[in-house]
């Protein structure tokens, strides 16, 4: 067994026993933060499936919002279990991704333009949620109706946070697995070629539209799944925390901060941004409203200017460089 594999097993084992460590009264809180890190890392990973191939989407807030709102509204109004509701939500999101993704890849909407079109999509979803306030609750958000006590599995609502801890962890591992599968497939070679130069890729026989649409649909479906799990965990959805530009930017920030070209980059970035914002929130409390976000914004700008490959990516590159330098001199 290689060292890398050993490390991986060790990390997963520590994470698996995590919720049973004696942390006293802190445990609830720590579990809560880690669940969020797992889910947002998964969403970040889903984003970077597109982002690493040059499809810098700012529309993932829309996919997350459709996922979260579709399941919660189906449950609240029709009592439809999130097991089916989640599936419906993912299908709806896929439909949205096709409606946006097909023309984008067909008409070569790329770069800044792709960013702006997807940005408009996430705003459309957020505004629609606010506009349809009669049944979505508008800006006030919507709470999941609590399930009867005997049907928590049917309703996917659990009083014990540790259940969600394992659900979220499984989700995170699933995301990493998808990443590895995509990375090893022919599709990733094709997508890399497309990301470099679409016309050249098409000229060697790569079906540009098909590959771009495929990766968009996969990324959107995973993001919607993240939204479904997130809303089940929080039992509350709000247009500003589940959709719109703010959410899209947050997802992308975390990923770019960690580094989108490496397997663990999105997770490291998400863990750092969530840890940073939680730390700032607790440290400053309600004393200076806005200071936590101010520092957060400042850190992001500095990181993007000085660590363009992301924290994890830069760290790994410099370690590698040192390692190769050592072997070269030896």
């Amino acid at each position, binding site marked *: 067994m290689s060292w890398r594999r050993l490390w991986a097993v060790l990390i997963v084992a520590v994470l698996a026993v995590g919720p049973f460590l004696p942390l006293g009264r802190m445990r609830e809180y720590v579990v809560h933060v880690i669940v969020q890190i797992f889910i947002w890392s998964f969403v970040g990973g889903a984003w970077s499936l597109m982002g690493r191939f040059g499809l810098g989407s700012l529309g993932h807030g829309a996919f997350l919002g459709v996922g979260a709102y579709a399941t919660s509204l189906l449950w609240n109004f029709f009592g439809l279990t999130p097991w089916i509701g989640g599936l419906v939500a993912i299908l709806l999101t896929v439909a949205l991704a096709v409606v946006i993704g097909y023309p984008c890849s067909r008409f070569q909407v790329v770069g800044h333009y792709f960013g*702006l079109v997807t940005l408009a999509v996430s705003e459309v979803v957020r505004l629609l949620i606010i506009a349809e306030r009669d049944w979505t609750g508008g800006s006030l958000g919507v709470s999941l109706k609590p399930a009867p006590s005997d049907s928590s599995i049917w309703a996917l609502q659990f009083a014990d946070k540790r259940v969600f801890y394992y659900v979220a962890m499984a989700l995170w591992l699933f995301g990493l697995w998808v990443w590895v599968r995509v990375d090893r497939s022919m599709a990733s070679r094709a997508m890399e070629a497309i990301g470099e130069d679409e016309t050249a890729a098409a000229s060697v026989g790569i079906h540009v539209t098909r590959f771009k649409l495929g990766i968009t649909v996969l990324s959107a479906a995973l993001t919607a799944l993240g939204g479904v799990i997130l809303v089940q965990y929080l039992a509350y959805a709000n247009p500003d925390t589940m959709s719109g530009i703010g959410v899209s930017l947050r997802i992308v920030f975390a990923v770019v901060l960690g580094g989108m070209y490496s397997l663990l980059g999105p997770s490291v970035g998400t863990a750092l941004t969530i840890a940073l914002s939680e730390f700032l929130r607790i440290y400053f409390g309600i004393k200076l*409203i806005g200071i936590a976000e101010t520092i957060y914004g400042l850190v992001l700008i500095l990181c993007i200017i000085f660590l363009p490959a992301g924290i994890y990516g830069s760290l790994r590159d410099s370690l590698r460089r040192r390692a190769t330098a050592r072997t070269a001199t030896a």
Partner: protein
Amino acid sequence: MIDPLFLLEAVVNGVLLGGVLALLALGLNLIFGVIDIVWIAYVDLVMLCMYAVYFLVTVYHWPIVLAGVGSVVTGVILGLLVHLLIISPILSSPPINQFLATGGLLFFIQSFATLLWSTDHRSVRVNLPVLEVGGIFISFPRLIAFGLSILAMLGLYLFLTRTFVGTAIRAVSQDRDATALMGANPLRLYLVTSAVGGAMAGIAGALLIIQYAVHPYFGGAFGPLTFMICVLGGLGSMFGAFVAAFIMSQIISVGGVLISTEMGYVVAFVIFIVLMFVRPGGIFAKRT
């Protein structure tokens, strides 16, 4: 059925809103066209200029016109700062990093404004009458803002076409490398462009504060709209941005009256998305 007078009033308001939107879009379009970077936080700079006017008028008791000049100066300084501190280090980064750096600036400005001035809505009271023309009401401040933004745009047009620096700026937006070969320094032109873009933000700020109350999240409504107008008009096309601003403002204003404010924006954004597919180079681009 909605009273036609209401509809007419919405159309007039749409035209008046279009003037200010066009001004915002032209400032951003200039930067986008020349430096090829979208300042996601552009409208947040406008928001800071609005605060500048507010404090100059209410705390220091400057007359409103002088405060407007102060707003322009603030805009120029902010534009230069953004360029020197954030944009110049990332000029050659991938587009997504450039997006994010100015997006980080957006978070920073919004929350810093919250920290300094709280989320209170603040407005400058200007005692001006509301005009009544044939049964429809037109707010006088809006009319002034419209007139001044048309003048500002005319000024920008003259600057870009009649001065040497302006011509050089237009040349950079057409072909960066060729302009450098002709002996113009693109990096210095970037600085001038950022200053001019900042000045436009300052003018827009002064014109917006007499119509709307300012708060830290002011950029939320106008920001995305401004980029869309820019892209819809076509990069570097001043005329396109101008027309696109009036189209979008009409949709928002009339849609807002016919359905609801949010739906007005939704319709405008959906039209933007569809137009991007049909005419990716902007509404006046020649088909290739």
